[in-house]
């Protein structure tokens, strides 16, 4: 029973951002394998998600000339508004999805192909990238890699736009191999230069993110890469990279690192890499969920700020964009150093202990306190005071509270906003054991 509670707690925290009200106790009754099966089934329709209007992200066109201050000001406001809208739209999707596995995987891939609007500077290419990631989030990695090579935001982010035959830019080539598809030290410096040549000639419309191939700028000479010596372009080079065994190992490791444990290396007995042999992401995720890795006691993870916030939203039926003011969540997430579309660098966000500094603790408490003023606690108030700790434990899908947390919550059980703040800032919620 205890073991099952641990596994179900992890199932929801890691693959669904957290349970919705009542879901955790239902899952305990239904058992882990039924719950896992339900979670892995993403084919059911989701009327509330379908009803969520798409953000309005028209192509804003070229930035006005710097001398035109009025136009520049209006333009900057439009970029900012669009950025907020796409970010809130995505947070809303995470929070209201009946089955958020697809959103959870999209979030994973955003951290993997980490691209920041800080340099892209237009919301439309970022939005298009997000849709590309979603379309491929549980699909085939090879298809995803091709789509991402042709993604305008990624091309802008890593200077692909400026890479031409006589002077290839290595930024995209290096990070494509190091961070996206192969892992560091699984290629040589000559490989970086070779792939950079294959990646020449792609041009991006900055405002739209449309990518076009310009043969005149492309290096069409034969390129030596991984033992072959033929002319290569972005797609054929991507194929060669994804076909390497290192790709299967690397993507398996990245999935494991985020979903299972960042401090324990992949245990092959759970068969994740085998499941990913054909580059099928859904099979790899199924192996992560179903093959027992979630039951190993020492595989704890720290919820990243977005995951922590969305788990609260799901437990308390909060839609992020409906908080007041509308960008309330974005301001707090920024203080916690994690806003979607704004990763700190091309390596994505850090993991585990990075979110456990005293600075993070401070911003987490202040976020939770501010949130507690906007939450409807009537359901919690209806629970008898002596049952509230058990209630919130199941509501948040927490494995167990330690004695110190139990004491802190007991002291606050009649002050519901504070009771909430303490529960969501407790080590047992911040860390998913």
């Amino acid at each position, binding site marked *: 029973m205890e073991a099952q509670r641990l596994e179900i707690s992890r199932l929801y925290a890691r693959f669904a951002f957290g349970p919705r009200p009542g879901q955790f106790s239902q899952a305990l009754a239904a058992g882990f394998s039924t719950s896992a099966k339900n979670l892995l089934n993403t084919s059911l329709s989701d009327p509330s998600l379908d009803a969520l209007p798409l953000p309005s992200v028209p192509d804003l066109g070229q930035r006005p000339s710097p001398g035109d201050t009025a136009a520049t000001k209006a333009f900057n406001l439009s970029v900012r508004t669009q950025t907020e809208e796409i970010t809130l739209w995505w947070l809303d999707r995470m929070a209201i999805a009946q089955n958020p596995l697809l959103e959870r995987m999209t979030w994973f891939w955003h951290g993997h192909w980490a691209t920041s609007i800080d340099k892209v500077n237009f919301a439309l290419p970022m939005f298009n990238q997000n849709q590309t990631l979603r379309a491929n989030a549980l699909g085939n990695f090879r298809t995803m890699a091709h789509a991402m090579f042709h993604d305008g935001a990624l091309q802008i982010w890593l200077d692909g736009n400026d890479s031409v035959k006589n002077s290839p830019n290595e930024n995209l080539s290096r990070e494509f191999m190091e961070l996206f598809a192969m892992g560091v030290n699984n290629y040589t410096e000559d490989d970086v230069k070779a792939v950079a040549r294959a990646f020449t000639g792609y041009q991006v419309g900055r405002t739209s993110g449309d990518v076009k191939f310009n043969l005149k700028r492309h290096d069409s000479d034969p390129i030596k890469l991984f033992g072959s010596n033929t002319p290569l372009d972005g797609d054929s080079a991507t194929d060669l990279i994804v076909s390497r065994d290192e790709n299967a190992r690397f993507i398996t490791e990245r999935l494991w690192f985020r979903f299972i444990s960042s401090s324990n290396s992949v245990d092959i007995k759970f068969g994740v890499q085998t499941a990913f042999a054909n580059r099928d992401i859904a099979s790899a995720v199924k192996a992560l969920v179903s093959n027992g890795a979630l039951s190993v006691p020492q595989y704890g993870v720290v919820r990243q700020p977005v995951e922590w916030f969305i788990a609260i939203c799901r437990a308390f039926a909060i839609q992020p964009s409906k908080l007041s003011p509308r960008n309330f969540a974005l301001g707090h997430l920024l203080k916690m150093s994690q806003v979607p579309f704004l990763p700190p660098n091309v*390596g994505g966000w850090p993991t585990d202990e990075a979110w456990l500094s005293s600075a993070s603790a401070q911003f987490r*408490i202040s976020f939770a306190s501010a949130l507690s003023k906007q939450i409807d606690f009537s359901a919690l108030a209806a629970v008898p005071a002596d049952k509230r700790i058990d209630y919130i434990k199941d509501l948040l899908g927490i494995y167990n509270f330690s004695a110190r947390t139990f004491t*802190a919550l007991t002291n606050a059980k009649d002050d519901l906003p504070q009771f909430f703040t303490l529960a969501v800032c407790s080590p047992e919620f911040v860390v998913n054991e």
Partner: protein
Amino acid sequence: MDTISRRKFLQLSGAATVGASAAMLSISDIAQAAIARPLPLGTPIVVVVTLYGGNDGLNTVVPYTDPLYYSMRPEISYKPEKVLQLSDGLGLNPAMSEMKSLWDQKKLAIIRGVGYPFPDHSHFSSMAIWQTASPISHISTGWLGRWLDSQSVDPMLAISLGSVPPPLFAGAKRSGSALPLGGLVIPSGKLAMRCQTLSKSSSSDSPLMASAATSMGNLFDLSSNVTSVLKSPAPIAADLPVTNGGNAGGESSLQQQLDIVAKLIVAGAPTRAWSVSLGGFDTHANEANAQSALLGSVSSSVARFISQLKGSGRASDVTVMIYSEFGRRVKANASQGTDHGTSGPVFVIGDRINGGMYGDQPSLSKLVDGDLAVTTDFRDIYASILERDLKADPAQILNGWKGRVNLLYK
């Protein structure tokens, strides 16, 4: 580094409280004692400034008399009359006028061609090597973290600004603390009491949960110590230039970080090592404007920091070291930028420093695969700092390393 060890590095990047559990019970007592015993005047203090993204050394310290410099990067070179001329045919980036003034005062040492054997071109691997000071074998502790390991437990001893502590402060037994930017808003009243209850250790805690609890507890311990010296509101973030190279880490406002460090040093915080950072140096495209704006920020922030120490009696205690994970390729690319390179200059600044040039300038006619040669190992600099400022045995911390930057200190 293999992939697993790189993961370890990423994991390490937040290891502020890892391993501190043994000392957790007494942290509060010791932090309280820190107020009662301010750092004695005359105790050396090290401030490490990390420039994330790979700063282009050739356009920081410009070889303006070398025709090869102009032929290899025709569009992003600085003309002789623009650079701030120093000596040996070298001049500072035009944006670094305050650094030039420190040079004129003989407080700025420029160590040239700094790197390590078999340079790695990955941001993450190379930064891990610099911060762990272990170029060949991967290890999970930072060079100042290992120094912390040799000290008695004190959460105030090494502090990094910003919410994510750098790996260089991660020791095997204890680690530096993190201080957030933007003012401290610490809970008070009942919530504070209850949060402190939440931060008690529990026998059922996993290592991660213990870290979560400790970090919350440290918040209260640290805050009770530093809020008294941070009564005035946190400085407003200085406007940072918009750059297009910002994809490889680092905090955004160096001036804001250094303002807080200056205040705390003047107030007598018992802190021997500080870490601040600035990102945005990954200038694969349109480098000139972006880099000079960033270097201007480094130059003015550091000079302002040093001037803030004047009158405190501690100005001569402080050594500032500025480094980046690598320099950049000598030949420019087609995007008016440069790709990842190898060695670069390191700046060491202070009253006790003998200003001037150190190490050999890497030759532009003897490139290694298009990259600058490494002429000084960064461990020489670390060893000098450990020995002269932190009074530690460098060999113990740097795996037997014997090299030094000769005559760097007065």
